[in-house]
Protein backbone atom coordinates (compact mmCIF):
# COMPACT_ATOMS: atom_id res chain seq x y z
CA UNK A 1 0.00 0.00 0.00
CA UNK A 2 1.60 3.24 -1.13
CA UNK A 3 1.58 6.14 1.29
CA UNK A 4 -0.20 8.33 -1.28
CA UNK A 5 -3.01 5.78 -1.43
CA UNK A 6 -3.16 5.66 2.36
CA UNK A 7 -3.38 9.42 2.57
CA UNK A 8 -6.25 9.44 0.09
CA UNK A 9 -8.08 6.72 2.00
CA UNK A 10 -7.68 8.59 5.28
CA UNK A 11 -8.96 11.77 3.76
CA UNK A 12 -11.93 9.94 2.25
CA UNK A 13 -12.88 7.77 5.22
CA UNK A 14 -12.47 10.03 8.25
CA UNK A 15 -15.36 12.43 7.56
CA UNK A 16 -18.05 9.73 7.20
CA UNK A 17 -16.86 8.09 10.42
CA UNK A 18 -16.93 11.37 12.29
CA UNK A 19 -20.43 11.97 10.90
CA UNK A 20 -21.58 8.50 11.95
CA UNK A 21 -20.41 9.14 15.50
CA UNK A 22 -22.12 12.52 15.65
CA UNK A 23 -25.31 10.98 14.23
CA UNK A 24 -25.22 8.20 16.82
CA UNK A 25 -25.00 10.77 19.61
CA UNK A 26 -27.91 12.78 18.20
CA UNK A 27 -29.84 9.56 17.71
CA UNK A 28 -29.27 8.67 21.36
CA UNK A 29 -30.62 12.05 22.45
CA UNK A 30 -33.73 11.76 20.27
CA UNK A 31 -34.43 8.21 21.43
CA UNK A 32 -33.95 9.22 25.08
CA UNK A 33 -36.27 12.20 24.57
CA UNK A 34 -38.91 9.63 23.69
CA UNK A 35 -38.16 7.62 26.82
CA UNK A 36 -36.75 4.59 25.00
CA UNK A 37 -33.46 2.77 25.28
CA UNK A 38 -31.03 3.65 22.45
CA UNK A 39 -29.45 0.18 22.37
CA UNK A 40 -32.74 -1.64 21.85
CA UNK A 41 -33.96 0.88 19.25
CA UNK A 42 -30.73 0.56 17.25
CA UNK A 43 -30.97 -3.24 17.49
CA UNK A 44 -34.53 -3.02 16.18
CA UNK A 45 -33.35 -0.80 13.35
CA UNK A 46 -30.72 -3.34 12.29
CA UNK A 47 -33.04 -6.33 12.66
CA UNK A 48 -35.70 -4.64 10.54
CA UNK A 49 -33.25 -3.90 7.73
CA UNK A 50 -30.32 -6.32 7.47
CA UNK A 51 -31.84 -8.91 9.81
CA UNK A 52 -34.53 -10.34 7.55
CA UNK A 53 -34.94 -10.95 3.83
CA UNK A 54 -37.91 -8.63 3.34
CA UNK A 55 -36.27 -5.72 5.14
CA UNK A 56 -33.02 -6.32 3.28
CA UNK A 57 -34.90 -6.42 -0.02
CA UNK A 58 -36.44 -3.04 0.77
CA UNK A 59 -33.00 -1.66 1.62
CA UNK A 60 -31.68 -2.91 -1.72
CA UNK A 61 -34.65 -1.35 -3.53
CA UNK A 62 -34.21 2.04 -1.89
CA UNK A 63 -30.43 1.90 -2.31
CA UNK A 64 -30.87 1.29 -6.05
CA UNK A 65 -32.59 4.62 -6.69
CA UNK A 66 -30.15 6.41 -4.37
CA UNK A 67 -27.18 4.85 -6.18
CA UNK A 68 -28.37 6.40 -9.45
CA UNK A 69 -28.99 9.86 -8.01
CA UNK A 70 -25.77 9.66 -5.98
CA UNK A 71 -23.74 8.71 -9.06
CA UNK A 72 -25.39 11.54 -10.97
CA UNK A 73 -24.51 14.16 -8.36
CA UNK A 74 -20.97 12.82 -7.88
CA UNK A 75 -20.26 12.88 -11.61
CA UNK A 76 -21.26 16.54 -11.68
CA UNK A 77 -19.07 17.37 -8.69
CA UNK A 78 -16.09 15.63 -10.31
CA UNK A 79 -16.49 18.11 -13.17
CA UNK A 80 -16.85 21.00 -10.72
CA UNK A 81 -20.61 21.33 -11.19
CA UNK A 82 -23.27 20.97 -8.51
CA UNK A 83 -26.34 19.24 -9.90
CA UNK A 84 -29.19 19.93 -7.47
CA UNK A 85 -31.68 18.82 -10.10
CA UNK A 86 -31.52 15.04 -9.66
CA UNK A 87 -35.00 15.12 -8.15
CA UNK A 88 -36.69 16.35 -11.32
CA UNK A 89 -34.30 14.44 -13.61
CA UNK A 90 -35.32 11.25 -11.81
CA UNK A 91 -39.00 12.13 -12.21
CA UNK A 92 -38.62 13.04 -15.90
CA UNK A 93 -36.76 9.77 -16.54
CA UNK A 94 -39.46 7.72 -14.86
CA UNK A 95 -42.10 9.59 -16.78
CA UNK A 96 -40.60 9.02 -20.23
CA UNK A 97 -39.95 5.35 -19.39
CA UNK A 98 -43.63 4.98 -18.50
CA UNK A 99 -44.68 6.75 -21.72
CA UNK A 100 -42.65 4.34 -23.86
CA UNK A 101 -43.86 1.41 -21.76
CA UNK A 102 -47.43 2.52 -22.38
CA UNK A 103 -46.88 3.05 -26.08
CA UNK A 104 -45.16 -0.26 -26.84
CA UNK A 105 -47.31 -3.24 -27.70
CA UNK A 106 -47.08 -6.19 -25.32
CA UNK A 107 -46.23 -8.26 -28.39
CA UNK A 108 -42.78 -6.62 -28.56
CA UNK A 109 -40.33 -8.92 -26.74
CA UNK A 110 -38.96 -7.67 -23.41
CA UNK A 111 -35.36 -7.77 -24.64
CA UNK A 112 -36.32 -4.91 -26.95
CA UNK A 113 -38.95 -3.24 -24.76
CA UNK A 114 -36.90 -2.91 -21.58
CA UNK A 115 -33.87 -1.29 -23.27
CA UNK A 116 -36.17 1.10 -25.13
CA UNK A 117 -37.80 2.16 -21.85
CA UNK A 118 -34.36 2.53 -20.24
CA UNK A 119 -33.21 4.67 -23.13
CA UNK A 120 -36.29 6.84 -22.68
CA UNK A 121 -35.54 7.23 -18.97
CA UNK A 122 -31.97 8.32 -19.67
CA UNK A 123 -33.22 10.67 -22.36
CA UNK A 124 -35.78 12.26 -20.02
CA UNK A 125 -33.19 12.94 -17.33
CA UNK A 126 -30.63 13.95 -19.94
CA UNK A 127 -32.90 16.64 -21.37
CA UNK A 128 -33.55 18.10 -17.92
CA UNK A 129 -29.78 18.01 -17.28
CA UNK A 130 -28.92 19.55 -20.64
CA UNK A 131 -30.92 22.74 -19.97
CA UNK A 132 -28.82 23.97 -17.00
CA UNK A 133 -25.73 22.68 -18.83
CA UNK A 134 -26.54 24.82 -21.86
CA UNK A 135 -27.39 27.88 -19.74
CA UNK A 136 -24.15 27.49 -17.79
CA UNK A 137 -21.92 27.09 -20.81
CA UNK A 138 -23.64 29.65 -23.02
CA UNK A 139 -24.66 32.35 -20.51
CA UNK A 140 -22.69 31.53 -17.35
CA UNK A 141 -25.96 31.02 -15.40
CA UNK A 142 -25.07 29.26 -12.17
CA UNK A 143 -26.13 25.61 -12.36
CA UNK A 144 -27.06 25.38 -8.66
CA UNK A 145 -29.84 27.94 -8.92
CA UNK A 146 -30.97 26.84 -12.38
CA UNK A 147 -31.26 23.19 -11.36
CA UNK A 148 -33.18 24.12 -8.18
CA UNK A 149 -35.58 26.34 -10.10
CA UNK A 150 -35.92 23.72 -12.84
CA UNK A 151 -36.94 21.13 -10.25
CA UNK A 152 -40.07 23.12 -9.51
CA UNK A 153 -40.81 23.82 -13.17
CA UNK A 154 -40.40 20.21 -14.31
CA UNK A 155 -42.32 18.72 -11.38
CA UNK A 156 -45.19 21.21 -11.87
CA UNK A 157 -45.25 20.37 -15.58
CA UNK A 158 -45.34 16.61 -14.95
CA UNK A 159 -48.05 17.15 -12.34
CA UNK A 160 -50.09 19.04 -14.94
CA UNK A 161 -49.73 16.28 -17.54
CA UNK A 162 -50.67 13.56 -15.06
CA UNK A 163 -53.53 15.45 -13.43
CA UNK A 164 -55.09 16.55 -16.70
CA UNK A 165 -54.24 14.06 -19.37
CA UNK A 166 -52.84 10.76 -18.27
CA UNK A 167 -54.15 9.55 -14.97
CA UNK A 168 -56.31 6.65 -13.94
CA UNK A 169 -59.47 8.26 -12.46
CA UNK A 170 -59.26 8.99 -8.70
CA UNK A 171 -55.46 8.58 -8.71
CA UNK A 172 -52.40 10.57 -9.71
CA UNK A 173 -50.72 7.77 -11.63
CA UNK A 174 -50.71 6.58 -15.23
CA UNK A 175 -52.27 3.28 -16.33
CA UNK A 176 -49.98 0.24 -16.08
CA UNK A 177 -47.31 -0.07 -18.75
CA UNK A 178 -47.82 -2.72 -21.44
CA UNK A 179 -44.17 -3.46 -21.94
CA UNK A 180 -40.79 -2.93 -20.32
CA UNK A 181 -41.41 -4.49 -16.89
CA UNK A 182 -38.25 -5.56 -15.06
CA UNK A 183 -38.54 -8.76 -12.95
CA UNK A 184 -38.36 -8.61 -9.17
CA UNK A 185 -35.59 -10.35 -7.24
CA UNK A 186 -38.20 -12.52 -5.51
CA UNK A 187 -38.67 -14.37 -8.82
CA UNK A 188 -35.16 -15.73 -8.41
CA UNK A 189 -34.79 -15.68 -4.62
CA UNK A 190 -38.17 -16.47 -3.03
CA UNK A 191 -37.06 -15.13 0.38
CA UNK A 192 -37.35 -11.59 -0.99
CA UNK A 193 -41.07 -12.12 -1.42
CA UNK A 194 -43.05 -8.91 -0.98
CA UNK A 195 -40.09 -6.58 -1.21
CA UNK A 196 -39.74 -4.19 -4.14
CA UNK A 197 -36.13 -5.13 -4.94
CA UNK A 198 -35.75 -5.87 -8.64
CA UNK A 199 -33.12 -6.44 -11.29
CA UNK A 200 -32.61 -2.68 -11.69
CA UNK A 201 -30.01 -3.12 -8.95
CA UNK A 202 -27.75 -4.84 -11.50
CA UNK A 203 -28.14 -1.88 -13.83
CA UNK A 204 -27.19 0.42 -10.93
CA UNK A 205 -24.02 -1.60 -10.33
CA UNK A 206 -23.23 -1.49 -14.05
CA UNK A 207 -23.79 2.27 -14.03
CA UNK A 208 -21.38 2.60 -11.09
CA UNK A 209 -18.78 0.51 -12.92
CA UNK A 210 -19.35 2.60 -16.04
CA UNK A 211 -18.85 5.87 -14.15
CA UNK A 212 -15.69 4.47 -12.56
CA UNK A 213 -14.32 3.42 -15.95
CA UNK A 214 -15.20 6.77 -17.51
CA UNK A 215 -13.64 8.78 -14.68
CA UNK A 216 -10.44 6.84 -14.12
CA UNK A 217 -9.72 4.91 -17.31
CA UNK A 218 -10.57 7.20 -20.20
CA UNK A 219 -9.18 10.40 -21.64
CA UNK A 220 -12.60 12.06 -21.37
CA UNK A 221 -12.75 11.19 -17.69
CA UNK A 222 -9.27 12.56 -17.10
CA UNK A 223 -10.29 15.81 -18.76
CA UNK A 224 -13.47 15.90 -16.73
CA UNK A 225 -11.58 15.57 -13.45
CA UNK A 226 -8.99 18.11 -14.59
CA UNK A 227 -11.77 20.61 -15.31
CA UNK A 228 -13.30 19.88 -11.91
CA UNK A 229 -10.04 20.58 -10.10
CA UNK A 230 -8.68 23.53 -12.08
CA UNK A 231 -10.88 24.73 -14.95
CA UNK A 232 -8.48 27.50 -15.94
CA UNK A 233 -5.48 25.18 -16.00
CA UNK A 234 -7.47 22.62 -18.00
CA UNK A 235 -8.44 25.31 -20.51
CA UNK A 236 -4.76 26.28 -20.95
CA UNK A 237 -3.99 22.60 -21.37
CA UNK A 238 -6.25 22.56 -24.41
CA UNK A 239 -9.41 21.12 -22.86
CA UNK A 240 -12.71 22.72 -23.87
CA UNK A 241 -14.16 23.45 -20.44
CA UNK A 242 -17.58 24.33 -21.85
CA UNK A 243 -17.76 21.06 -23.76
CA UNK A 244 -16.77 19.03 -20.71
CA UNK A 245 -19.33 20.84 -18.56
CA UNK A 246 -22.11 20.33 -21.08
CA UNK A 247 -21.41 16.61 -21.45
CA UNK A 248 -20.93 16.08 -17.70
CA UNK A 249 -24.17 17.74 -16.60
CA UNK A 250 -26.17 16.13 -19.39
CA UNK A 251 -24.77 12.70 -18.53
CA UNK A 252 -25.39 13.40 -14.85
CA UNK A 253 -29.04 14.11 -15.67
CA UNK A 254 -29.25 10.96 -17.80
CA UNK A 255 -27.94 8.80 -14.93
CA UNK A 256 -30.45 10.31 -12.50
CA UNK A 257 -33.19 9.82 -15.10
CA UNK A 258 -32.23 6.17 -15.54
CA UNK A 259 -32.89 5.76 -11.81
CA UNK A 260 -36.57 6.29 -12.60
CA UNK A 261 -36.83 2.75 -13.98
CA UNK A 262 -36.40 1.27 -10.49
CA UNK A 263 -39.86 2.49 -9.50
CA UNK A 264 -41.60 2.60 -12.87
CA UNK A 265 -40.34 -0.58 -14.59
CA UNK A 266 -39.24 -2.58 -11.55
CA UNK A 267 -41.78 -1.85 -8.85
CA UNK A 268 -45.15 -0.24 -9.64
CA UNK A 269 -45.22 -0.51 -13.44
CA UNK A 270 -46.70 2.97 -13.71
CA UNK A 271 -45.54 6.56 -13.27
CA UNK A 272 -46.96 8.23 -10.20
CA UNK A 273 -46.83 11.94 -9.39
CA UNK A 274 -44.21 12.69 -6.70
CA UNK A 275 -42.69 9.20 -6.92
CA UNK A 276 -39.18 10.65 -6.61
CA UNK A 277 -40.10 11.65 -3.06
CA UNK A 278 -36.80 13.28 -2.13
CA UNK A 279 -34.50 10.57 -3.55
CA UNK A 280 -32.95 13.19 -5.80
CA UNK A 281 -32.06 15.46 -2.91
CA UNK A 282 -30.80 12.51 -0.90
CA UNK A 283 -28.53 11.79 -3.86
CA UNK A 284 -26.57 14.87 -2.81
CA UNK A 285 -26.05 13.31 0.62
CA UNK A 286 -25.07 10.00 -0.98
CA UNK A 287 -22.48 11.65 -3.22
CA UNK A 288 -21.10 13.65 -0.31
CA UNK A 289 -20.80 10.73 2.12
CA UNK A 290 -19.56 8.47 -0.70
CA UNK A 291 -16.81 11.03 -1.36
CA UNK A 292 -17.76 11.17 -5.07
CA UNK A 293 -16.27 7.75 -5.77
CA UNK A 294 -18.52 5.10 -7.36
CA UNK A 295 -17.69 2.51 -4.67
CA UNK A 296 -18.28 5.05 -1.92
CA UNK A 297 -21.55 6.07 -3.58
CA UNK A 298 -22.82 2.47 -3.54
CA UNK A 299 -21.91 2.11 0.16
CA UNK A 300 -23.46 5.46 1.04
CA UNK A 301 -26.63 4.53 -0.88
CA UNK A 302 -26.88 1.37 1.23
CA UNK A 303 -26.35 3.45 4.38
CA UNK A 304 -29.07 6.00 3.60
CA UNK A 305 -31.43 3.26 2.40
CA UNK A 306 -30.86 1.45 5.71
CA UNK A 307 -31.69 4.61 7.62
CA UNK A 308 -34.86 5.20 5.66
CA UNK A 309 -36.09 1.60 5.89
CA UNK A 310 -34.93 1.44 9.51
CA UNK A 311 -37.20 4.36 10.34
CA UNK A 312 -40.17 2.16 9.51
CA UNK A 313 -38.81 -0.67 11.66
CA UNK A 314 -38.56 1.47 14.79
CA UNK A 315 -41.73 3.48 14.24
CA UNK A 316 -43.66 1.66 16.95
CA UNK A 317 -41.18 2.94 19.57
CA UNK A 318 -39.70 6.17 18.20
CA UNK A 319 -41.27 8.23 15.38
CA UNK A 320 -39.70 7.34 12.03
CA UNK A 321 -39.05 11.08 11.57
CA UNK A 322 -35.99 10.48 13.74
CA UNK A 323 -34.12 9.18 10.71
CA UNK A 324 -34.91 12.36 8.79
CA UNK A 325 -33.21 14.32 11.55
CA UNK A 326 -30.25 11.95 11.43
CA UNK A 327 -29.95 12.30 7.65
CA UNK A 328 -29.66 16.05 8.05
CA UNK A 329 -27.14 15.66 10.87
CA UNK A 330 -24.99 13.26 8.84
CA UNK A 331 -24.89 15.62 5.85
CA UNK A 332 -23.95 18.66 7.92
CA UNK A 333 -21.37 16.69 9.91
CA UNK A 334 -19.69 15.34 6.76
CA UNK A 335 -19.77 18.74 5.07
CA UNK A 336 -18.16 20.27 8.17
CA UNK A 337 -15.49 17.64 8.67
CA UNK A 338 -14.27 17.32 5.06
CA UNK A 339 -12.28 20.60 5.01
CA UNK A 340 -11.32 20.13 8.67
CA UNK A 341 -9.96 16.61 8.21
CA UNK A 342 -8.05 17.68 5.12
CA UNK A 343 -6.38 20.49 7.04
CA UNK A 344 -5.63 18.32 10.07
CA UNK A 345 -4.09 15.53 7.97
CA UNK A 346 -1.95 17.98 6.01
CA UNK A 347 -0.67 19.43 9.26
CA UNK A 348 0.04 16.02 10.79
CA UNK A 349 1.97 14.92 7.71
CA UNK A 350 4.26 17.95 7.69
CA UNK A 351 7.77 16.88 8.77
CA UNK A 352 8.45 17.62 12.43
CA UNK A 353 11.37 19.91 11.56
CA UNK A 354 9.18 22.23 9.48
Amino acid at each position, binding site marked *: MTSRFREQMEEALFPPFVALLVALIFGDL*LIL*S*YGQSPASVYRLLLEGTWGNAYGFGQVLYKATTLAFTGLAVSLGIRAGL*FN*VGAESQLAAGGFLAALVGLGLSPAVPGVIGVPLCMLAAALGGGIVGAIPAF*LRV*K*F*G*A*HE*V*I*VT*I*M*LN*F*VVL*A*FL*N*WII*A*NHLHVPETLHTPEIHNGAIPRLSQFIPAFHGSAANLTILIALLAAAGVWFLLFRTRRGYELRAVGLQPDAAEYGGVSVGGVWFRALTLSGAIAGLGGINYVLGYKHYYEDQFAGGSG*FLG*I*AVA*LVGRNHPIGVILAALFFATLSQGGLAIHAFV*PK*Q*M*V*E*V*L*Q*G*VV*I*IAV*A*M*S*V*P*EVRRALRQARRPASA
Partner: protein
Amino acid sequence: MNPISFLTQMLRISVPYLFAASGGVIAERAGIISLALEGFMLTGAFSATLGAYYSGSPWIGVLCGILGGLVFGMIHAVATIRYRADQVVVGIAINLLAVGVTRFFLKLAFASSSNSPRINGFPAKLSAHGFDNPLLWMGLLVAPVLAFVLYRTRFGLRARAVGEHPDAAESVGIPVARVRYAAVALSGMLAALGGVYLALDQHQFTDQMTAGRGFIAVAAVIFGRWDPLRAALACLLFAAAETLQIQLQGNHIIPSQFVEMIPYVLTIVALAGVVGKATPPAALGKTEH
Protein backbone atom coordinates in the same frame (compact mmCIF):
# COMPACT_ATOMS: atom_id res chain seq x y z
CA MET B 1 -62.61 41.02 -9.66
CA ASN B 2 -62.57 43.52 -6.80
CA PRO B 3 -59.30 45.51 -6.85
CA ILE B 4 -59.31 46.07 -3.06
CA SER B 5 -59.69 42.39 -2.26
CA PHE B 6 -57.03 41.61 -4.87
CA LEU B 7 -54.60 44.04 -3.30
CA THR B 8 -55.18 42.89 0.28
CA GLN B 9 -54.87 39.24 -0.65
CA MET B 10 -51.70 39.94 -2.60
CA LEU B 11 -50.15 41.79 0.35
CA ARG B 12 -51.02 38.98 2.74
CA ILE B 13 -49.55 36.36 0.42
CA SER B 14 -46.41 38.44 -0.05
CA VAL B 15 -45.56 38.82 3.68
CA PRO B 16 -43.73 35.45 4.11
CA TYR B 17 -41.84 36.10 0.86
CA LEU B 18 -40.85 39.60 1.99
CA PHE B 19 -39.41 38.38 5.27
CA ALA B 20 -37.59 35.40 3.77
CA ALA B 21 -36.25 37.28 0.75
CA SER B 22 -34.86 40.01 3.04
CA GLY B 23 -33.11 37.27 5.00
CA GLY B 24 -31.71 35.89 1.76
CA VAL B 25 -30.47 39.29 0.61
CA ILE B 26 -28.51 40.05 3.79
CA ALA B 27 -26.81 36.62 3.92
CA GLU B 28 -25.90 36.61 0.23
CA ARG B 29 -24.68 40.20 0.22
CA ALA B 30 -22.27 39.09 2.98
CA GLY B 31 -21.09 36.26 0.74
CA ILE B 32 -22.95 33.25 2.16
CA ILE B 33 -25.20 31.32 -0.25
CA SER B 34 -28.67 31.22 1.20
CA LEU B 35 -30.57 28.09 0.22
CA ALA B 36 -31.81 27.36 3.74
CA LEU B 37 -34.59 29.98 3.78
CA GLU B 38 -37.20 27.23 3.51
CA GLY B 39 -35.75 25.48 6.55
CA PHE B 40 -35.52 28.71 8.56
CA MET B 41 -39.17 29.49 7.77
CA LEU B 42 -40.33 26.03 8.77
CA THR B 43 -38.41 26.13 12.04
CA GLY B 44 -39.78 29.61 12.72
CA ALA B 45 -43.34 28.45 12.10
CA PHE B 46 -42.93 25.46 14.38
CA SER B 47 -41.20 27.18 17.28
CA ALA B 48 -43.72 30.03 17.09
CA THR B 49 -46.49 27.45 17.37
CA LEU B 50 -44.84 25.89 20.41
CA GLY B 51 -44.44 29.30 22.08
CA ALA B 52 -47.93 30.49 21.29
CA TYR B 53 -49.50 27.19 22.33
CA TYR B 54 -47.84 26.95 25.73
CA SER B 55 -48.07 30.67 26.58
CA GLY B 56 -51.33 31.50 24.86
CA SER B 57 -49.74 34.69 23.57
CA PRO B 58 -48.94 35.35 19.91
CA TRP B 59 -46.12 37.70 20.94
CA ILE B 60 -44.35 34.92 22.84
CA GLY B 61 -44.88 32.90 19.68
CA VAL B 62 -43.12 35.58 17.64
CA LEU B 63 -40.19 35.59 20.07
CA CYS B 64 -39.88 31.80 20.04
CA GLY B 65 -40.09 31.80 16.25
CA ILE B 66 -37.23 34.29 15.99
CA LEU B 67 -35.24 32.18 18.44
CA GLY B 68 -35.83 29.04 16.36
CA GLY B 69 -34.61 30.86 13.26
CA LEU B 70 -31.58 32.12 15.18
CA VAL B 71 -30.62 28.59 16.28
CA PHE B 72 -30.84 27.21 12.74
CA GLY B 73 -29.11 30.28 11.37
CA MET B 74 -26.24 29.72 13.78
CA ILE B 75 -25.95 26.05 12.75
CA HIS B 76 -25.67 27.27 9.15
CA ALA B 77 -23.15 29.96 10.15
CA VAL B 78 -20.91 27.70 12.24
CA ALA B 79 -20.85 25.03 9.54
CA THR B 80 -20.11 27.37 6.66
CA ILE B 81 -17.96 30.04 8.35
CA ARG B 82 -16.06 28.28 11.13
CA TYR B 83 -15.81 24.89 9.39
CA ARG B 84 -15.91 26.20 5.80
CA ALA B 85 -18.39 23.53 4.78
CA ASP B 86 -19.85 23.77 1.29
CA GLN B 87 -22.61 26.37 1.52
CA VAL B 88 -24.92 24.71 -1.00
CA VAL B 89 -24.70 21.37 0.80
CA VAL B 90 -25.30 22.92 4.21
CA GLY B 91 -28.27 24.91 2.92
CA ILE B 92 -29.93 21.81 1.52
CA ALA B 93 -29.12 19.83 4.67
CA ILE B 94 -30.67 22.54 6.87
CA ASN B 95 -33.88 22.22 4.86
CA LEU B 96 -33.93 18.44 5.33
CA LEU B 97 -33.07 18.87 9.00
CA ALA B 98 -35.88 21.37 9.52
CA VAL B 99 -38.44 19.00 8.03
CA GLY B 100 -37.19 16.16 10.23
CA VAL B 101 -36.90 18.19 13.42
CA THR B 102 -40.34 19.80 13.10
CA ARG B 103 -41.96 16.44 12.33
CA PHE B 104 -40.21 14.69 15.20
CA PHE B 105 -41.13 17.34 17.75
CA LEU B 106 -44.65 17.69 16.35
CA LYS B 107 -45.03 14.04 17.21
CA LEU B 108 -43.34 14.47 20.59
CA ALA B 109 -45.24 17.62 21.65
CA PHE B 110 -48.67 17.06 20.11
CA ALA B 111 -48.68 13.32 19.23
CA SER B 112 -49.61 14.17 15.65
CA SER B 113 -47.91 13.65 12.32
CA SER B 114 -49.94 16.29 10.48
CA ASN B 115 -50.73 19.38 12.55
CA SER B 116 -50.62 21.12 15.91
CA PRO B 117 -53.69 22.09 17.95
CA ARG B 118 -55.16 25.54 17.37
CA ILE B 119 -53.08 28.47 18.62
CA ASN B 120 -53.95 32.11 19.23
CA GLY B 121 -53.03 34.46 16.43
CA PHE B 122 -53.30 38.22 16.55
CA PRO B 123 -56.94 39.16 17.20
CA ALA B 124 -58.69 40.58 14.14
CA LYS B 125 -60.73 43.37 15.72
CA LEU B 126 -60.88 46.00 13.05
CA SER B 127 -61.19 44.23 9.73
CA ALA B 128 -61.23 40.86 8.15
CA HIS B 129 -58.40 41.81 5.80
CA GLY B 130 -55.59 41.08 8.22
CA PHE B 131 -54.47 44.70 8.48
CA ASP B 132 -54.48 44.69 12.27
CA ASN B 133 -51.83 41.97 12.23
CA PRO B 134 -48.58 43.70 13.30
CA LEU B 135 -46.53 41.10 11.41
CA LEU B 136 -48.12 42.22 8.16
CA TRP B 137 -46.86 45.76 8.73
CA MET B 138 -43.46 44.50 9.78
CA GLY B 139 -43.32 42.43 6.61
CA LEU B 140 -44.11 45.44 4.44
CA LEU B 141 -41.49 47.55 6.23
CA VAL B 142 -38.67 45.02 6.43
CA ALA B 143 -37.31 45.63 2.92
CA PRO B 144 -37.00 49.45 3.20
CA VAL B 145 -35.43 49.05 6.65
CA LEU B 146 -32.97 46.49 5.30
CA ALA B 147 -32.15 48.78 2.38
CA PHE B 148 -31.33 51.52 4.89
CA VAL B 149 -29.21 49.17 6.99
CA LEU B 150 -27.38 47.80 3.96
CA TYR B 151 -26.61 51.11 2.25
CA ARG B 152 -26.55 53.66 5.09
CA THR B 153 -25.04 51.98 8.17
CA ARG B 154 -21.59 50.77 9.15
CA PHE B 155 -22.80 47.19 9.48
CA GLY B 156 -24.34 47.32 6.01
CA LEU B 157 -21.16 48.68 4.48
CA ARG B 158 -19.13 45.97 6.19
CA ALA B 159 -21.56 43.24 5.10
CA ARG B 160 -21.30 44.36 1.48
CA ALA B 161 -17.52 44.61 1.77
CA VAL B 162 -17.10 41.04 3.06
CA GLY B 163 -19.44 39.82 0.33
CA GLU B 164 -17.52 41.49 -2.46
CA HIS B 165 -13.87 41.59 -1.37
CA PRO B 166 -13.27 39.73 1.88
CA ASP B 167 -9.48 40.05 1.54
CA ALA B 168 -9.64 43.81 1.11
CA ALA B 169 -12.15 44.03 3.98
CA GLU B 170 -9.86 42.04 6.23
CA SER B 171 -6.84 44.17 5.35
CA VAL B 172 -8.63 47.30 6.57
CA GLY B 173 -9.49 45.59 9.84
CA ILE B 174 -13.06 44.41 9.29
CA PRO B 175 -13.67 41.16 11.23
CA VAL B 176 -14.88 39.17 8.21
CA ALA B 177 -16.09 36.10 10.09
CA ARG B 178 -17.95 38.13 12.73
CA VAL B 179 -19.79 40.22 10.13
CA ARG B 180 -20.79 37.06 8.30
CA TYR B 181 -22.00 35.41 11.50
CA ALA B 182 -24.19 38.44 12.17
CA ALA B 183 -25.55 38.45 8.61
CA VAL B 184 -26.44 34.75 8.62
CA ALA B 185 -27.98 34.95 12.10
CA LEU B 186 -30.07 37.91 10.97
CA SER B 187 -31.00 35.96 7.85
CA GLY B 188 -32.26 33.05 9.95
CA MET B 189 -34.33 35.32 12.17
CA LEU B 190 -35.86 37.28 9.29
CA ALA B 191 -36.77 34.18 7.29
CA ALA B 192 -38.18 32.59 10.46
CA LEU B 193 -40.54 35.56 10.81
CA GLY B 194 -42.01 34.59 7.46
CA GLY B 195 -42.83 31.18 8.92
CA VAL B 196 -44.13 32.77 12.14
CA TYR B 197 -46.55 34.84 10.09
CA LEU B 198 -47.85 31.71 8.34
CA ALA B 199 -48.38 29.77 11.58
CA LEU B 200 -50.11 32.63 13.40
CA ASP B 201 -52.21 33.48 10.36
CA GLN B 202 -53.43 29.90 9.99
CA HIS B 203 -53.68 29.44 13.78
CA GLN B 204 -51.72 26.20 13.70
CA PHE B 205 -48.61 24.44 12.45
CA THR B 206 -49.06 21.88 9.70
CA ASP B 207 -46.39 19.51 8.40
CA GLN B 208 -44.27 21.22 5.71
CA MET B 209 -46.56 24.24 5.84
CA THR B 210 -43.99 26.50 4.15
CA ALA B 211 -44.52 24.44 0.97
CA GLY B 212 -41.61 25.79 -1.08
CA ARG B 213 -42.11 29.46 -0.15
CA GLY B 214 -38.47 29.64 0.93
CA PHE B 215 -37.42 28.79 -2.61
CA ILE B 216 -39.74 31.41 -4.07
CA ALA B 217 -37.88 33.82 -1.77
CA VAL B 218 -34.56 32.53 -3.15
CA ALA B 219 -35.93 33.21 -6.62
CA ALA B 220 -36.95 36.72 -5.52
CA VAL B 221 -33.45 37.43 -4.19
CA ILE B 222 -31.90 36.56 -7.54
CA PHE B 223 -34.64 38.10 -9.66
CA GLY B 224 -34.25 41.22 -7.51
CA ARG B 225 -30.48 41.14 -8.16
CA TRP B 226 -29.55 40.96 -4.48
CA ASP B 227 -31.05 44.40 -3.74
CA PRO B 228 -33.57 44.60 -0.85
CA LEU B 229 -36.10 46.81 -2.64
CA ARG B 230 -35.89 45.05 -5.98
CA ALA B 231 -36.22 41.70 -4.20
CA ALA B 232 -39.29 43.03 -2.39
CA LEU B 233 -40.78 44.08 -5.72
CA ALA B 234 -40.11 40.58 -7.01
CA CYS B 235 -41.94 39.19 -3.97
CA LEU B 236 -44.93 41.42 -4.72
CA LEU B 237 -44.86 40.37 -8.36
CA PHE B 238 -44.81 36.65 -7.47
CA ALA B 239 -47.57 37.21 -4.90
CA ALA B 240 -49.65 39.04 -7.50
CA ALA B 241 -49.36 36.10 -9.89
CA GLU B 242 -50.44 33.74 -7.12
CA THR B 243 -53.38 35.96 -6.16
CA LEU B 244 -54.48 36.20 -9.76
CA GLN B 245 -54.44 32.44 -10.01
CA ILE B 246 -56.48 32.05 -6.80
CA GLN B 247 -59.05 34.65 -7.81
CA LEU B 248 -59.40 33.29 -11.33
CA GLN B 249 -59.80 29.74 -10.09
CA GLY B 250 -62.60 28.03 -11.92
CA ASN B 251 -62.03 30.10 -15.06
CA HIS B 252 -59.35 27.69 -16.28
CA ILE B 253 -57.62 30.34 -18.35
CA ILE B 254 -54.15 29.17 -17.32
CA PRO B 255 -53.62 25.90 -15.42
CA SER B 256 -52.44 26.53 -11.84
CA GLN B 257 -49.26 24.54 -12.46
CA PHE B 258 -48.14 27.09 -15.03
CA VAL B 259 -48.78 29.98 -12.64
CA GLU B 260 -46.66 28.14 -10.04
CA MET B 261 -43.80 28.07 -12.54
CA ILE B 262 -43.70 31.86 -13.04
CA PRO B 263 -41.18 32.79 -10.29
CA TYR B 264 -38.83 29.99 -11.25
CA VAL B 265 -38.95 30.58 -14.99
CA LEU B 266 -38.44 34.33 -14.53
CA THR B 267 -35.42 33.62 -12.30
CA ILE B 268 -33.84 31.26 -14.83
CA VAL B 269 -34.40 33.85 -17.55
CA ALA B 270 -32.85 36.55 -15.34
CA LEU B 271 -29.82 34.35 -14.58
CA ALA B 272 -29.29 33.63 -18.26
CA GLY B 273 -29.15 37.38 -18.73
CA VAL B 274 -31.81 37.66 -21.43
CA VAL B 275 -33.03 40.94 -19.91
CA GLY B 276 -30.28 42.57 -17.84
CA LYS B 277 -27.96 40.02 -16.34
CA ALA B 278 -28.24 39.08 -12.65
CA THR B 279 -24.71 39.17 -11.22
CA PRO B 280 -24.17 37.83 -7.69
CA PRO B 281 -21.85 39.38 -5.06
CA ALA B 282 -18.27 38.63 -6.08
CA ALA B 283 -17.30 36.46 -3.09
CA LEU B 284 -20.60 34.56 -2.90
CA GLY B 285 -20.01 30.94 -1.94
CA LYS B 286 -16.22 31.17 -1.80
CA THR B 287 -15.13 29.22 1.27
CA GLU B 288 -11.52 30.42 1.29
CA HIS B 289 -10.80 34.07 1.51
